[in-house]
């Protein structure tokens, strides 16, 4: 059985440089409720480490971190 939670919102941070992908995600996640999923698309190569560190510090869960070509994709569940 596959459990899927629909993505509540997508942050398109493609083309934005550090630290705007994190800033946009942090602003977007405020509007959501606990357990909601946020999808983030980014092209900033530093974002992989940034999302890992940011989720660790803030307590939001980084459910997925992947890359497809030049686009990084993160799924974050709001704590």
């Amino acid at each position, binding site marked *: 059985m596959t459990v899927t939670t629909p993505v509540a919102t997508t942050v398109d941070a493609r083309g934005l440089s550090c630290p705007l992908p*994190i*800033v946009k995600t942090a602003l977007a996640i405020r509007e959501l409720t606990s357990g909601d999923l946020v999808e983030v698309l980014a092209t900033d190569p530093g974002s992989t480490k940034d999302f890992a560190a940011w989720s660790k510090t803030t307590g939001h869960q980084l459910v997925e971190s992947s890359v497809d070509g030049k686009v990084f994709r993160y799924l974050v569940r709001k704590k």
Partner: protein
Amino acid sequence: MDPRLSLVLFSGTDDKLNAAAVLTAGAAAIGRPVHLFLQYWALDSFRADRIADDHGLAPEAGSEGVRAAAALRAAGQAPWHETLRQAKELGEVEIQACSLSMDLLNITEADLDPLVDGVEGVTSFWLAAGDGQVVFI
């Protein structure tokens, strides 16, 4: 550890202001309060009628740096004042102008961009900094 970060902005070139804005936004994203103290040429770049101007780059940028910065701008990189605006929206970010520099540059509070929250002296700055880290840019 005192989570407060204090950044003294001295240089008024776009590269250094951008570095400061990026550090500020990153700190705001992880919930650290940031206090910016604007001195000298940095303060001059926060004049409401000049904030969006081209403030040049630090001498170490060289011609290659100038080309790289121009390419980033052309690619749509957010200007430093926009990054600061977002940092303020996101977290606890306070921007204060140094009163001595205000006198030196003959600037009044009405001349400053609304990003600036107020004017303070160096004593107030140090008291606000507490035991937190201070960075000079």
